[in-house]
């Protein structure tokens, strides 16, 4: 064990002597330099180990042979050692990152850097206020000097602005310190308590706090920081943004016990405001490093807020929240700043270069996901707990601001990410040079943050392996990525099988039903992906992640587990969608809407009362009375996921632009997650009804969604968009019938969910096959394919009959149940709307099958073959399913009847094949028989009587007394329902789309407006600082 004061001593000595070592060559000085830095890390690491694992007491170091307060003393407790370990390590990494720079640059840069790190150590350890000032100045001055490590005019300007701003702040700090001495007669934090201050003495604390706070870059007094982040060498920027911020933040942490609560709260709110505005302004930013700067400032604001709002809670929670934000932000930010240094692209638009560099792209992804506070990264847990505290203390404004801010952050971060993955690059773009010294730190940090995440999950929440499974899936498959994708496909099929088998015992009733939809449905759909030729790297990892999170959704025991699975589901599906060729915009929209929904759910869950049993959520939630607010928020969250009207605009994009063998997962299965969620609320709803009937409105939204979806589908030219809108419409039915909250209603909801899973998967896979052969999704470019791909045609035929609800196929069961339930419930007009939409659904269904398979065959499709076998197999598995439940509806009605029976007493009577409701009856089997009969009779007649039929081609027709000139002109397909659109008139306009578009525009222009306060003039920045202090003082006064 080495006395940590040696960190100061050695660094200083080395610093003083480096210029002499330099005489012995740069090698020597570099050795000393890195030696000392690593020595620091080593010393602190040991102490951290001792304190955490051997639980040794905090170490107090007195100087000058006197005890405090006579002399200055240093403290190395848990917090100090943690922060120092982090800062020293980051410092070392940044130094390694800067290795090539340090080889060439002036020796002074080494000295400055060394002493900068030394200063941070002192700053964190010292307990003496004035000594703190000295160390702060050491840090500042060395930073000022280092800003020009790469000397450009910009960095000089930024450095100067930084200096005058910092100087101003330090004046106030000095004033604060001496007045603290004046009022308390002491300078040592251990000997000063809040009670020592007269009311009038608080002014000293105010000055002190403000000086530190200004160093933490609050909005709007932070222009200087942005310029520094933008212009300074990335290595140094990372040090400023991470190491310095950490140090200063710790100073704030040290003095925070002295600060009166109301001041602390005001600073907390200021932090929240900073978070919000910096993210808002980030929206408009195009310069990568400046963008990171905005985000950095915002995150620090959030950090301050989290500290000042949670300071009175138990320490473990504070460690999780504040520590979580701290680690998450700083690690991610350091890594990203380093990346900007490697990529060397100022403008975000040029970041497409990352496409060619998988490893960098992956690192970028990890850090970016971490930064945006998604699970499993520490920021997620911190945010979850923090929001929980804020919600339970009813600070809804703060919650709203924070979440809106993080939504903005998500927007610009993921816009950036999608550019990096999908953005276009000019061909003569040169490869990014590989520099180990630069790549190593980033890789290490990405690894570390993953480790920390897992550590939190294991130790704080003691999650089992099953919750970790999604992450393991991604990492595991990433290691196996060299295997050809077919094998990977088979393997994942097996894995899913095992997983399903493992899950089975945990499931009962409702869970089991959704287990079948999620797991079995996915398994069958995986067969469709076996058609992939290339390696398709990363695909199966995220596919498995998604499937596992479906499963975890079902068996979740707590709100958190549910939400975690939900977020994993979002992430994985986002990545899967992003894999599509033109999916940049689509996936971004998907991410934004999903995140918004997720945040609403987060608040909803945190506001919900605690569960008092440890059975699965879907059972235990029945015993809690959800407050109306959380019901509303949760409902909206789930409806966003299920593409409800008003928030549906992401749905067609995402479902259509995803790779054609991914769409079935997204559209046929993923949507059911929202359904599951709504059912979950419903279960609590029926047991203890809230004061305000939320589900009545949910019901209306459902039916309107059904209608709008059907209409939109009818007006599409793109087959997959058509199917996507059809899904929207179908899920609208489901949502509406859940909202009925009756036995029949839920029966129909589940029946339809199951059906929809089957026919929509089949349809999407069939279209995938067609697309695979014709390379187009635009329907009017096809036609007459029935003879080329008969099997796909049959699938589509059966499926659309099932969708439309025409007897005898299973679809009619759904219709029958739905209408019966609506009329029984007394929702007559809703039922009317549903009749309308089911009428409209014929339009798009006919359009789908006719324009692709019937009508005229195009020349270019003269010689295409049937879809590949891997597409055919799953289709026919689903067909078999549909036929089975059409023949014998009891196969599904009976089990569903008993499942729903747990929540309502049964409203139907089943005897034999006959199902009787309070209104009417339906005998699926008899219907099937009769239909067979009435179909076969004319057929036989035709066969027998009309033997001499003469086969002719499609083209053999007479058209306006002429032969038509070409298939293109003879195939009536394009804009098929123009007259209907005309009839709808004003109702046909894309109002919702325009609304969201306007919203985007507005938020961007707001951001643009606010960021104009950063005039770039250093003087104005000082003015901001002064005014800021004044304003806070005034707020404090009143």
């Amino acid at each position, binding site marked *: 064990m080495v006395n940590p004061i040696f960190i100061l001593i050695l660094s200083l000595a080395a610093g003083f002597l480096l210029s002499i070592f330099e005489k012995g060559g740069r090698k020597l000085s570099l050795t000393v330099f890195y030696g000392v830095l690593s020595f620091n890390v080593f010393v602190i690491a040991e102490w951290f180990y001792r304190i955490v694992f051997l639980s040794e007491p905090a170490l107090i*170091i007195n100087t000058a*042979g006197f005890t405090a307060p006579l002399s200055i003393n240093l403290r190395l407790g848990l917090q100090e050692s943690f922060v120092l370990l982090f800062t020293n390590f980051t410092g070392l990494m940044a130094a390694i990152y800067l290795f090539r720079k340090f080889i060439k640059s002036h020796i002074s840069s080494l000295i400055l850097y060394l002493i900068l790190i030394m200063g941070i150590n002192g700053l964190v350890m010292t307990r003496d206020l004035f000594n703190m000032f000295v160390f702060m100045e050491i840090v500042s*001055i060395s930073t000022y000097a280092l800003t020009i490590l790469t000397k450009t005019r910009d960095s000089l300007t930024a450095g100067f602005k930084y200096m005058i701003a910092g100087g101003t702040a330090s004046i106030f700090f000095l004033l604060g310190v001496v007045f603290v001495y004046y009022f308390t007669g002491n300078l040592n934090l251990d000997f000063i308590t809040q009670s020592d201050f007269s009311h009038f003495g608080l002014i000293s604390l105010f000055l002190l706090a403000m000086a530190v706070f200004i160093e933490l870059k609050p909005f709007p007094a932070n222009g200087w920081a942005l310029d520094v982040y933008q212009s300074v060498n990335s290595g140094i920027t990372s040090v400023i943004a991470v190491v310095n911020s950490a140090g200063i933040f710790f100073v704030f942490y040290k003095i925070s016990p002295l600060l009166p609560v109301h001041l602390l709260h005001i600073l907390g709110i200021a932090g929240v405001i900073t978070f919000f505005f910096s993210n808002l302004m980030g929206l408009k930013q195009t310069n990568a490093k400046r963008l990171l700067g905005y985000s950095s400032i915002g995150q620090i604001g959030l950090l301050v807020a989290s500290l000042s709002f949670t300071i009175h809670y138990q320490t473990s929670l504070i460690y999780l929240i504040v520590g979580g934000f701290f680690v998450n932000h700083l690690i991610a930010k350091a890594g990203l700043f380093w990346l900007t240094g490697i990529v060397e692209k100022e403008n975000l638009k040029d970041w497409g270069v990352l496409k060619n560099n998988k490893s960098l792209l992956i690192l970028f992804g990890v850090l970016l996901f971490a930064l945006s506070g998604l699970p499993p990264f520490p920021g997620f847990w911190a945010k979850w707990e923090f929001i929980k505290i804020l919600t339970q203390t009813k600070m809804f404004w703060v919650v709203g601001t924070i979440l809106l801010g993080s939504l903005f952050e998500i927007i610009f971060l993921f816009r950036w990410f999608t550019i990096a993955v999908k953005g276009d690059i000019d061909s003569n773009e040169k490869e990014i040079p590989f520099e180990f010294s630069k790549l190593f730190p980033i890789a290490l940090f990405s690894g570390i943050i993953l480790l920390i995440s897992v550590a939190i999950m294991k130790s704080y929440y003691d999650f089992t392996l099953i919750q970790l499974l999604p992450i393991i899936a991604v990492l595991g498959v990433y290691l196996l990525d060299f295997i050809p994708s077919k094998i990977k496909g088979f393997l994942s099929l097996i894995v899913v099988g095992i997983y399903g088998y493992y899950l089975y015992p945990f499931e009962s009733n409702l869970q089991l039903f959704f287990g079948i939809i999620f797991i079995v449905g996915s398994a069958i759909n995986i067969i469709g992906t076996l058609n992939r030729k290339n390696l398709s790297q990363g695909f199966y990892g995220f596919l498995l992640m998604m499937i596992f999170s479906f499963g975890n959704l079902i068996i979740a025991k707590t709100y958190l587990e549910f939400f975690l699975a939900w977020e994993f589901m979002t992430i994985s599906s986002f990545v899967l969608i992003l894999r599509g060729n033109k999916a940049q915009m689509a996936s971004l929209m998907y991410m934004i809407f999903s995140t918004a929904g997720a945040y609403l759910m987060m608040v909803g869950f945190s506001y919900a009362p605690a569960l008092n049993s440890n059975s699965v959520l879907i059972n235990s939630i029945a015993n809690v009375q959800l407050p109306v607010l959380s019901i509303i928020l949760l409902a909206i969250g789930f409806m966003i996921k299920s593409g409800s009207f008003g928030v549906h605009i992401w749905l067609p994009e995402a479902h259509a632009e995803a790779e054609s063998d991914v769409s079935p997962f997204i559209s046929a299965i993923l949507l059911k997650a929202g359904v599951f969620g709504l059912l979950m609320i419903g279960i609590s709803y029926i047991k203890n009804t809230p004061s305000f009937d939320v589900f009545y409105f949910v019901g209306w939204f459902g039916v309107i969604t059904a209608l709008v979806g059907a209409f939109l589908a009818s007006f599409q030219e793109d087959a997959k968009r058509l199917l996507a809108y059809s899904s929207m419409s179908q899920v609208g039915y489901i949502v509406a019938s859940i909202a009925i909250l009756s036995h029949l209603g839920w029966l129909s909801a589940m029946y339809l969910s199951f059906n929809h899973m089957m026919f929509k998967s089949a349809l999407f896979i069939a279209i995938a096959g067609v697309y695979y052969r014709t390379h187009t999704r635009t329907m009017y470019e096809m036609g007459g394919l029935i003879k080329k791909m008969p099997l796909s045609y049959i699938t589509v035929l059966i499926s659309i009959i099932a969708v439309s609800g025409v007897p005898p196929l299973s679809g009619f069961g759904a219709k029958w149940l739905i209408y019966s339930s609506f009329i029984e419930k007394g929702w007559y007009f809703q039922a009317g709307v549903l009749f309308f939409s089911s009428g409209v659904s014929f339009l798009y269904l006919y359009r789908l099958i006719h324009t692709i398979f019937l009508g005229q065959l195009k020349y270019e499709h003269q010689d295409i073959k049937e879809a590949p076998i891997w597409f055919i197999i799953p289709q026919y598995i689903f067909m078999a399913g549909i036929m089975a439940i059409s023949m014998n509806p009891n196969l599904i009605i009976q089990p569903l009847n008993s499942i729903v029976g747990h929540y309502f007493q049964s409203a139907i009577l089943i005897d034999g094949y006959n199902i009787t409701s309070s209104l009417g009856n339906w005998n699926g089997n008899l219907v099937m028989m009769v239909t067979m009969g009435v179909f076969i009779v004319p057929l036989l007649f035709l066969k027998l009587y009309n033997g001499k039929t003469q086969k002719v081609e499609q083209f053999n027709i007479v058209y306006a007394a002429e032969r038509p000139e070409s298939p293109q002109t003879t195939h009536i397909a394009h804009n098929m329902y123009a007259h209907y659109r005309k009839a709808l008139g004003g109702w046909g306009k894309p109002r919702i789309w325009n609304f969201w578009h306007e919203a985007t525009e507005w938020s961007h222009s707001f951001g643009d407006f606010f960021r104009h306060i950063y005039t770039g003039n250093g003087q104005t920045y000082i003015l901001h600082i002064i005014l800021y202090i004044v304003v806070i003082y005034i707020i404090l006064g009143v």
Partner: protein
Amino acid sequence: MIKKIFVALAIFGLFSIFLPIMINFDFHQNLSELSTQYVKGSVEDLNSQNVVTSVIVTYRGLDTLGEVTVLFLATAGIGFLLKKRKGKKRVASELLQTSSSFLSVVIIMFGIFIFSHGHLTPGGGFQGGVMIASAFLLLMLSDVNLELNHTILQFIESLSGAFYVVVGLIGLVLTIGFLNSKIIPLGEYGNLFSAGAIPLIYSFVGLKVGSELTNILDAMGGD
């Protein structure tokens, strides 16, 4: 115009923050018990006449070390920033040249006296250092293309700093605390060789400050 108004507001705001302090301010009647201990301790423990010095060099030695470091950083930074370039300059007057040449020697002597007697008289390392630097400034002004020997300056600077740390270290090795000035016998009260390591430390500080400031002036004088 808008800006002027805001500036006025800012200043007025600050004024209104400071006003209550100025109004309600009253001087303490007697020393805070901390400084009382210092005054006592300076005599009893450290045997140094100048309480301020003992506070600076011993009790709050860490500050002083930091302070030296700050100055050192400034030098490093400026050296990092400004590469010395020789330019054509005006020639100093005859009077200045002759006078400075012997004046500077006297000044340097005085500077040395100042920092070596920091524990007895007002003044100390910094003051002394500054004086030495001023002497060199005089030389530079008088003889424009004066070439200071940077190697020597650097050695003085680095070594004096290093020795300062070492002196502090001895205390640590003797396990009586870092920067403890009792590593040397305290000597007889009021003598030059009293107050333990204080004069020693102050001499290092003086040398360091002197050389650093000289460096800074030299670098800035470059053009």
